[in-house]
C-alpha cells in the first residue's frame, strides 16, 4: 500500500495586514460540521404529517411492462398513495430532451423499462419502512426484451432499439471540420491512431439524494427542498415537467450538502417524481435515496468509445487531429446531456497548438442508467485518448514523451489564444510550468529510480500528462450539438450569469448571499475573505449565506455549483457587489470627513482619509446611515442597503456559423508526472511518486485549492485503479454496493506532490480560474501512461485492476476445465451459482421423499417461505422473501419436477421472479439409505440470476447462498427428527423457490 509522507501541519494564517484573499484561514463552516450540528437535508425537520416515499425499480434492463398490480400495496395500513407511470403522466409532462427528436423522457417507466433501477412505482406511506413493506406487495409483470450495454454494439445493425425516435439508438450524429485536416493528414509523414473505451464511473458523494416536496392545490404551486446542486437551468426543466410556470416552483437547497461532484445535478428527475407524489397524496412527501439506489440508478459519468488519429511530423509536431467519439448516455438523454460530449469541444486540442481538426460526434443510448454531471465532465474521456496518443506518438517516433509534449505546447506569448475549435485560452505559460515541475518534482531522480528498479527486474514506469482545465462553462456550448441552422431557429444561448448580493443591516454589519450552492468547498469562508478585503473588515465580520431559494433570491440559469465556476465567477461577482456598495459608502464618508471620495480608504473597521488616517469614521456608522438617515446621504449616493450584481463574461459568445465555440471562460494548466511500480506477483499498482503542477490563476485560499487537488486526485485514482459501474451483457448492474464498487481508502491514496504557478486570468474579477476538476482529467491518463511504460503495452483500459493487468503480463486466462454439472441454459452475463453437497437426514428415503414433495413441509423448512401451492403433483409455486445485504424482496418461484425416480432421485427445474431480480435453476437430488435408518441426500445445482440482486456481487451472494442452504437442511433435518449437513450447496427444492434466484433468508 502506498503511504503518504505526511508533512508538518499547515500553520493557519489568521493575522497580519496583508489582504485576506490568498490566506488559508480556518473555515467558518467547520465548527458546526465537527460537532454534529450540520444541517443536511435529512437532518432538517419536516412539517407534521409529512409522508415518506420509496421507489419500486425495474430488475430488468429492457422489458415491456405488461401489468402492475398495486392493490395489495394500496390496502396496507399506512399507505397513502401508489403512483405508477400512468399516475405520474396524469400530472406531469415529459422532461425535455437535449436533442431534436421525437422522444420522450419520463422520470418513471411508462410502458417499458430501459435500465435496471428505472422507477416503476412510487409508494407513499406514513413512514419509510411501511412504504417498503408495500413495495414488496406490488406485482409487476414484465416481458423481457433484448438489452444492449455497449455503445458500439448499440450502433450495430440488429441491436435492440431503445427508442423509436432514436433509430439505430443514435440520438445525435454531427461532423465538424476546422482548418484543413484532410490536407494535413495527406501530407504528414506519420499517422498515429488509438482506440479507447473509457469506462463508466461516478464520484459517488457519501450523502445520497434527498427531496422534500409539497403542493399547494389552491395556487397550483410546488415547494421543493432538495440537495440539488445546479445548474439552475434545470429549474426550467422541472417546472415544465410539473406543468407550472417558474414562479410556481419554489426550489430551495439545505444549508449543507454531503458532497456532490456534479452528481447531485441528477436528483432532478426525482424532484419531479416526488413533487408529483406530493400532489397526488395531497401532503408533503419526503424521499431519501439509499446507497443501492444511488449506485444503481442515480447518475454516472458517460462511458465513451473514441478513435483518435493524429497527423504527425517527423519531429513529433502534431499537425492535425481526427476525433471519432461515440458517447454513451444510457437509457435516456436527460438534460443537460449530451453536454458531457460538448463541454470540451473548444479544448479538443488540449494544451497544444494544432490548427487542423476533424471531429465526428455520435451520441447513443444503451440499457444503462442515464448519465449526467460528474467531476471532470468530459475531460477524463477526452484527455485519456489525447494523452495516451501523445505517448504512442513518442514511442512510435523513438522520442521521449516529454519532448513530444513540449514540441506541441501553445507558445507562452500567444495568449489569449484561440484554439482551432473556438476556445479562447485566457492566460498561461505552459513551458515555464513544466520546467518548474520537472525541477521541483525531481524528474531526473525519478528516472534514476526507474532505471534502478528495471535493473532489478521490477516493473516500473513513468507517465506524463499535460492538460488544459476549462472552468466557468458557457451556457451556450451545448447548442453546438445543433447545426447552425437549428441554432438560428432556436435563438442564441450563451454566457454564464453569476449573481452576488451584499447587504448592510441597520447596525452596519455585512451579509453576503450568492447562488453558488456549495457541497463542502467552503464558499462561505472564501466570500468572507473577499468581501472583508473590500470593506477593510475581518472575515468574521462578514456573514455569508449560500442557501438558495428561487422564490426570493437573485439567481439565473447558470447559478449553482458546477464547471468549477465559484472562484472565477461567483467570488469575483461578490467582489464587484461589495465594491459597488463601497463606492457609495466612500461618497457618503467623503462628505462626512470633508475629503474627496478618491481619498477614502477602508481599513481596520474604519472608513478613513488616505492622506490623514486620523480623519476617520467607523465603518458600521457609515454603513448604517442608509437605514437611519437616508435624508442625510449625498443626493447622488443612492441607497447602500443592498446591492445585487449580475456578471457574465463577454467572452462567452454563442457558437459561430462555423461551429467554433468558446466553451469555457477560464483555462488552467496542469502538468503531471508520476512513477508507478507494479507488483509482479499481485499485479497491484503502487504509486511511487505523483507530481502535479497547477496554474489556476490567482489562488484565493491555498488550503482549499490543495484540498480540491487532493480530493480530485483521490477520485481520479479510484477511476484509474478500482472503480467501474459494471454491467453484465444482459444489462444487470453488478456493482450495487460499496463492497463491489470500490472507493480508494486511506491505505490506497498517497499524498501527491502539489506545486503551483499563478498566471492570473485577465477575464475574471479576481484573476482566479477553476481548479476543482483538473486532476479528474489528468490523473487517470497519467497513471495509465505510467502503467503502459512499466509493462511495455500499447492498449490500456481502465480501471487497472490486477485481473486486467494479468492479461497483459500473463496472457488471457485459460478456459475452465471441462466437466462438472451440466448447466441449464442461461443468458450470457447472468451471475451463476453452482454447487453440490450432501446432507444426512433421519428417516428412510421414502420418508424424506414424501417430505420433499409435501407443500406444508416445504413451507416450514424453506427459509423465508410465505406459502407453497401445489399446482400438480410435479409443479409447485412458492412465495419467498429473502434478503442479502441491502437487497431484500419477495419472489415468486415456479418449479417443476422431472425424471422422478421415487424415492431415489429427482430433477428440479424452475425460475423465480421478483422486484429485485430473477433467476433460473436446475438441480438434481438423490436419496440413498445410509445403512443406519437414515438417508444420505446428495444434491447439485446450477443457477443463474440477474436483475438488481446481481448487483450485490459474488462475495456476498455466495456466502448468503451457503447460509440459506444451511438453513434449509437444518430445518429439514429438524423436521425429520435430527441429522445434519455436509458440504455447501443448495437446497433441493430451495433450488427452486429461493435459490433459483437468490440469496439469504431474512427470517
Amino acid at each position, binding site marked *: 500500500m502506498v503511504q503518504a509522507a505526511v508533512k508538518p501541519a499547515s500553520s493557519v494564517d489568521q493575522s497580519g495586514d496583508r489582504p485576506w484573499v490568498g490566506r488559508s484561514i480556518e473555515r467558518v463552516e467547520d465548527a458546526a460540521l465537527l460537532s454534529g450540528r450540520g444541517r443536511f437535508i435529512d437532518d432538517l425537520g419536516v412539517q407534521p404529517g409529512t409522508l415518506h416515499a420509496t421507489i419500486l425499480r425495474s430488475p430488468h434492463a429492457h422489458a415491456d411492462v405488461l401489468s402492475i398490480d398495486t392493490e395489495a400495496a394500496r390496502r396496507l395500513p399506512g399507505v397513502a398513495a401508489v403512483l405508477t407511470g400512468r399516475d405520474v403522466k396524469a400530472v406531469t409532462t415529459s422532461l425535455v430532451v437535449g436533442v431534436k427528436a421525437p422522444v420522450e423522457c419520463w422520470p418513471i417507466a411508462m410502458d417499458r423499462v430501459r435500465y435496471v433501477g428505472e422507477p416503476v412505482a412510487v409508494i407513499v406511506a406514513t413512514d419509510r419502512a411501511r412504504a417498503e413493506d408495500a413495495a414488496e406487495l406490488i406485482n409487476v409483470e414484465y416481458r423481457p426484451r433484448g438489452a444492449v450495454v455497449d455503445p458500439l454494439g448499440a450502433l450495430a445493425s440488429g441491436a435492440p432499439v431503445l427508442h423509436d425516435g432514436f433509430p439505430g439508438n443514435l440520438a445525435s450524429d454531427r461532423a465538424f471540420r476546422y482548418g484543413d485536416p484532410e490536407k494535413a493528414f495527406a501530407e504528414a509523414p506519420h499517422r498515429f491512431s488509438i482506440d479507447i473505451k473509457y469506462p463508466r464511473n461516478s464520484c459517488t458523494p457519501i450523502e445520497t439524494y434527498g427531496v422534500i416536496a409539497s403542493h399547494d392545490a389552491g395556487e397550483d404551486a410546488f415547494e421543493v427542498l432538495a440537495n440539488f446542486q445546479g445548474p439552475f437551468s434545470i429549474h426550467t426543466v422541472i417546472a415544465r415537467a410539473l406543468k407550472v410556470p417558474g414562479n410556481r416552483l419554489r426550489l430551495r437547497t439545505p444549508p449543507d450538502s454531503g458532497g456532490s461532484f456534479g452528481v447531485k445535478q441528477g436528483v432532478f428527475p426525482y424532484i419531479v417524481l416526488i413533487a408529483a407524489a406530493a400532489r397526488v397524496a395531497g401532503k408533503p412527501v419526503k424521499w431519501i435515496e439509499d446507497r443501492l439506489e444511488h449506485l444503481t440508478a442515480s447518475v454516472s459519468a458517460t462511458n465513451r468509445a473514441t478513435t483518435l488519429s493524429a497527423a504527425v511530423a517527423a519531429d513529433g509536431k502534431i499537425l492535425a487531429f481526427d476525433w471519432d467519439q461515440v458517447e454513451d448516455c444510457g437509457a435516456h438523454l436527460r438534460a443537460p446531456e449530451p453536454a458531457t460530449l460538448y463541454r470540451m469541444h473548444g479544448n479538443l486540442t488540449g494544451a497544444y497548438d494544432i490548427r487542423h481538426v476533424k471531429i465526428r460526434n455520435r451520441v447513443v443510448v444503451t440499457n444503462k442508467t442515464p448519465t449526467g454531471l460528474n467531476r471532470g465532465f468530459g475531460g477524463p474521456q477526452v484527455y485519456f485518448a489525447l494523452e495516451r496518443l501523445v505517448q504512442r506518438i513518442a514511442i512510435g517516433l523513438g522520442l521521449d514523451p516529454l519532448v513530444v509534449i513540449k514540441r506541441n505546447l501553445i507558445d507562452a506569448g500567444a495568449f489569449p489564444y484561440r484554439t482551432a475549435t473556438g476556445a479562447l485560452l485566457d492566460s498561461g505559460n505552459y513551458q515555464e510550468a513544466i520546467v518548474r515541475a520537472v525541477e521541483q518534482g525531481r524528474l531526473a531522480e525519478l528516472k534514476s529510480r526507474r532505471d534502478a528498479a528495471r535493473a532489478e527486474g521490477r516493473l516500473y514506469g513513468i507517465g506524463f500528462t499535460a492538460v488544459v482545465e476549462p472552468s466557468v462553462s458557457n451556457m451556450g456550448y451545448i447548442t453546438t450539438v445543433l447545426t447552425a441552422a437549428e441554432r438560428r431557429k432556436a435563438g442564441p444561448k450563451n454566457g454564464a450569469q453569476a449573481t452576488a448580493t451584499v447587504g448592510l443591516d441597520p447596525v452596519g454589519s455585512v451579509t453576503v448571499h450568492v447562488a453558488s450552492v456549495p457541497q463542502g468547498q467552503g464558499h462561505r469562508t472564501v466570500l468572507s475573505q473577499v468581501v472583508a478585503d473590500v470593506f477593510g473588515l475581518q472575515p468574521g465580520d462578514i456573514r455569508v449565506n449560500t442557501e438558495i431559494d428561487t422564490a426570493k433570491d437573485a439567481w439565473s440559469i447558470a447559478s449553482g455549483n458546477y464547471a468549477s465556476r465559484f472562484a472565477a465567477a461567483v467570488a469575483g461577482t461578490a467582489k464587484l457587489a461589495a465594491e459597488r456598495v463601497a463606492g457609495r459608502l466612500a461618497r457618503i464618508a467623503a462628505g462626512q470627513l470633508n475629503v474627496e471620495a478618491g481619498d477614502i480608504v477602508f481599513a481596520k473597521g474604519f472608513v478613513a482619509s488616505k492622506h490623514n488616517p486620523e480623519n476617520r469614521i467607523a465603518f458600521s456608522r457609515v454603513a448604517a446611515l442608509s437605514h437611519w438617515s437616508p435624508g442625510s446621504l449625498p443626493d447622488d449616493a443612492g441607497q447602500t442597503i443592498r446591492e445585487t450584481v449580475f456578471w457574465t463574461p463577454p467572452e462567452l459568445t454563442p457558437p459561430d456559423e462555423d461551429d467554433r465555440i468558446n466553451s469555457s471562460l477560464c483555462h488552467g494548466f496542469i502538468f503531471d508526472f508520476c512513477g508507478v511500480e507494479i507488483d509482479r506477483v499481485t499485479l497491484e499498482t503502487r504509486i511511487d511518486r505523483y507530481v502535479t503542477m497547477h496554474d489556476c490563476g490567482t489562488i484565493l485560499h491555498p488550503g482549499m485549492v490543495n*484540498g480540491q487537488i487532493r480530493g480530485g486526485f483521490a477520485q481520479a485514482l479510484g477511476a484509474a485503479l478500482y472503480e467501474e459501474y459494471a454491467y453484465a451483457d444482459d444489462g444487470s448492474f453488478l456493482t450495487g454496493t460499496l463492497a463491489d464498487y470500490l472507493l480508494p481508502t486511506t491505505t490506497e491514496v498517497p499524498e501527491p506532490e502539489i506545486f503551483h504557478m499563478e498566471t492570473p486570468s485577465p477575464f475574471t474579477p479576481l484573476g482566479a480560474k477553476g481548479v476543482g476538476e483538473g486532476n479528474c482529467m489528468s490523473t487517470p491518463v497519467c497513471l495509465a501512461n505510467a502503467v503502459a511504460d512499466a509493462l511495455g503495452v500499447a492498449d490500456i483500459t481502465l480501471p487497472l485492476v490486477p485481473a486486467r493487468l494479468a492479461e497483459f503480463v500473463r496472457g488471457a486466462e485459460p478456459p475452465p476445465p471441462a466437466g462438472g454439472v451440466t448447466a441449464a441454459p442461461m443468458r450470457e452475463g447472468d451471475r451463476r451459482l453452482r454447487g453440490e453437497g450432501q446432507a444426512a437426514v433421519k428417516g428412510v428415503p421414502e420418508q424424506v421423499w414424501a417430505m420433499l414433495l409435501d407443500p406444508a413441509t416445504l413451507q416450514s423448512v424453506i427459509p423465508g417461505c410465505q406459502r407453497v401451492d401445489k399446482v400438480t403433483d410435479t409443479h409447485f409455486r412458492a412465495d419467498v422473501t429473502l434478503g442479502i445485504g441491502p437487497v431484500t424482496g419477495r419472489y415468486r418461484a415456479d418449479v417443476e419436477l422431472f425424471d422422478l425416480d421415487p424415492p431415489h432421485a429427482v430433477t428440479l427445474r424452475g425460475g423465480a421472479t421478483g422486484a429485485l431480480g430473477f433467476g433460473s435453476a436446475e438441480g438434481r437430488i438423490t436419496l440413498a439409505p445410509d445403512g443406519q435408518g437414515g438417508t444420505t441426500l446428495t444434491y447439485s445445482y446450477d443457477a443463474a440470476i440477474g436483475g438488481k440482486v446481481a448487483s450485490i456481487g459474488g462475495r456476498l451472494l455466495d456466502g448468503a447462498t451457503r447460509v440459506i442452504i444451511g438453513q434449509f437442511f437444518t430445518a429439514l433435518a429438524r423436521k425429520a427428527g435430527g441429522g445434519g449437513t455436509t458440504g455447501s450447496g443448495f437446497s433441493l427444492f430451495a433450488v427452486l423457490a429461493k435459490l433459483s434466484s437468490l440469496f439469504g433468508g431474512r427470517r
Partner: protein
Amino acid sequence: MTRLNSNARHAVRFTLNGKPVEAEAEPRMLLSDFLRHQLGATGTHVGCEHGVCGACTVIVDGMLTRSCLTLAAQVDGCEIRTVEGLAPSADRLGVLQQAFRRNHALQCGFCTAGILMSLDHYLGENPAPTEAGIRDLLSGHLCRCTGYTPIIQAALEAAAQLASPTKETSDA
C-alpha cells in the same frame, strides 16, 4: 432472551453522551435511524446502510460500532457516544476537532462524524500513534472530498497535543 413483537413498538433506553434517553422503536429499526429520527441526534450520518462507508460509526459500551448494522433494540441499557458528545461545550471544540479545522481535514463534513469517533476511540487507547496505524484504522471509512491526508495529519497533530500536558486544549 427477550422476544420482541415485530408489529409493536418497544421502549429503548440507553445513555447517550452521558445522559439517559428513551424512545420507542419497532424491532426492525436501526440504531442509526433511532439516533437520528427518534432522538434528534442527527450528527451521526448514514452513507451506505451496509457497513462499508463508516459514516455512521458510534461507540457502544466502549466499542466502535456501525450504527447502520445495529438494531436500536440491541443497545437497550448500553452507553453510547456520538459526535455530539465530543466538544467540551457548545461553543468550544475539542483538541481533535480543532486539529481537523486547522488542517482542512473536512470539506462537506458528511463522513466526518464517523471518522472523529473512530479516532477519538483509537487515540484514547494509542496515545502515540503512527501514521501507518492511523491509516489502517481509517481504512474502514470512506471520504470522497479530502483525499485523506489532511485527516491523517490532523489525527497525528491531535495525538501530539494530547500527549503534551501543558497546552491549552480547547478553544471556540
